């Protein structure tokens, strides 16, 4: 097995008395696409900053490409591409110039940076916007430019913090497509997200993280298999009746979750549960049978939903 590019043991970050990251262990193999899934405030971004060698850990071990970020920050960062949650492109510079100055930060020769900038603009589908002002780009374009910028040094590891938050569905799909291509080319991806569909689309392996701790780890399919049923029946009886109905359907399915707006009945066969429900004389306003998702895994593990 190849040596991991990232390895963390009992990694901890305290802010005052509060543990933002509370003793987590994980490894990322070269070429792997690894996701940190959790709600806002779970400690994902703090973990990303420590992996990005810009935040000093309080305790535990952390090695990036075999190096300790406490002593080799610049060396490690020379091998990383970072796509932050908040865009930080230089709005005073034009699109292509943003790539040029960033490439220089890595000590790359101007001619090489220029060559890569043009290739990356094409990759990010921004070739025709090379001379535009950054402010004139749409949100999705800015994200793509940020990703292009992160690739200017041909990084070993690409870190993406909430890469598609705030984008419309079409822009998200374009971005996913670009990231998928990178994955196919063998770039190691580490991303945080609170979107289950994003994690399912992009990640080979996921850790579910909540309150600074790892709750579960595995591939999306594995996590769903281990922590949820195959299907879910969602029924709505109206917000004032849901809790009361829940008492009447005890025993249906493998497990029942009561959310403020709906009931979730976990089962291998959702249709059968719906039939059983109506046989008890209950008629939901709406019903939906769907496959289990990582959202259900998260709900199971933490008792809370991802987006609150």
């Amino acid at each position: 097995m190849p040596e991991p590019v990232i390895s963390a043991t009992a990694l901890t970050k305290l802010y005052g008395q509060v543990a933002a990251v509370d003793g987590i262990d994980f490894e990322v193999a070269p070429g792997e696409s690894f996701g940190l899934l959790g709600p806002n405030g779970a400690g994902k971004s703090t973990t990303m900053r420590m992996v990005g060698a810009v935040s000093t850990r309080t305790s535990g071990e952390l090695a990036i490409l075999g190096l300790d970020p406490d002593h080799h920050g610049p060396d490690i960062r020379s091998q990383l591409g970072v796509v932050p949650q908040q865009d930080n492109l230089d709005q005073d510079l034009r699109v292509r110039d943003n790539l040029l100055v960033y490439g220089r930060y890595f000590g790359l020769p101007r001619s090489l940076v220029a060559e890569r900038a043009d290739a990356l603009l094409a990759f990010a589908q921004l070739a025709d916007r090379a001379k535009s002002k950054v402010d004139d780009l749409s949100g999705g374009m800015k994200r793509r430019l940020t990703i292009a910028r992160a690739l200017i040094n041909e990084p070993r590891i690409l870190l993406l913090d909430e890469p598609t938050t705030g984008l419309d569905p079409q822009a998200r799909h374009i971005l996913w497509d670009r990231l998928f291509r990178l994955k196919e080319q063998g770039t190691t991806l580490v991303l945080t997200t609170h979107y289950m569909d994003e994690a399912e689309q992009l990640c080979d392996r996921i850790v579910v993280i909540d309150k600074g701790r790892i709750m579960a780890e595995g591939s999306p399919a594995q996590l769903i298999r281990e922590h949820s049923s195959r299907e879910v029946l969602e029924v709505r009886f109206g917000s004032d009746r849901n809790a009361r109905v829940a008492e009447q359907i005890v025993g249906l399915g493998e497990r029942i979750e009561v959310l403020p707006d709906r009931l979730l009945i976990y089962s291998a066969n959702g249709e059968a549960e719906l039939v059983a429900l109506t046989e008890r004389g209950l008629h939901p306003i709406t019903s939906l049978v769907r496959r289990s998702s990582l959202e259900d895994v998260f709900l199971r593990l933490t008792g809370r939903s991802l987006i609150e």
Partner: protein
Amino acid sequence: MTAADTADRVDREDARRALAAGAAPRRWGSWYVAEHRLLAMKGYVGEAVFQSFGNPLIYLFALGVGLASLVPQGVAGVSYLEFVAPALMATAAMTIAANETTYPVLMGFKWNPTFFGMNASPLTGGQIVNGIMIAILVRMLVTVTIYFGVILAFGAVPSVWGALAIGAAVLTGMAIGLVLSSYTSTIQDDRGQMAMIQRFGIMPLFLFSGTFFPLEQLPVYLQPIGWISPLWHGAELGRVATYGLEEPLWLTVTHGGYLTGIVLVGLWATRRHFVRRLNR
């Protein structure tokens, strides 16, 4: 190799590659930042050039031709224009410093957080500060040199050592800029602090630092403003250069030492605040 390296796996191919790639940014990082900042300044190069030529012309006409007619006897043995010119050069440097180290610093942390982008690359917080300051220094040097040329054309530089006033002005600007940046780099939200700096910091310095009249003209209780003001020290240093202002050598050394000291302390504090804010 330090003891700390023992935990690292430098035998790995990818670790070796990282160490090799990190070498150039470790060495030249400050210059890469300066390059970036100067490129960004190109966006307002027209404005900057106009300021560089326009301001001295306006000031020198108003003061040297207008106000000087009220003081035909000159000041301290030289014409009023000769007296005021070196102080105006230092003021020009101060103005640039105040512009470049207030909003642009908060901008880089908050509104357009480019400093975080730089910090995610191999660059360090200290290098980011160095680079910003180098770029400001270059801009100041260009402006002050143009200013000096205009003053020269007005015939207000009797001494052959006059060009040293450029250095005095730039040193003044850097001292003020670094004091400001050490403060502005700690501001989380702009609640009018920047406007306060202009009104209650820069403006009084401009008026009470012996810029338009010798500091001794002020009542004794106001003179300490001048003593702590980098602008007064810089203006006096410039006067020594342009017309050989007579003062004891220890005082000239004090002017230079005071400004250099502020530059060093300001740089240290600014770097510290940047590193702390970028690497939470």
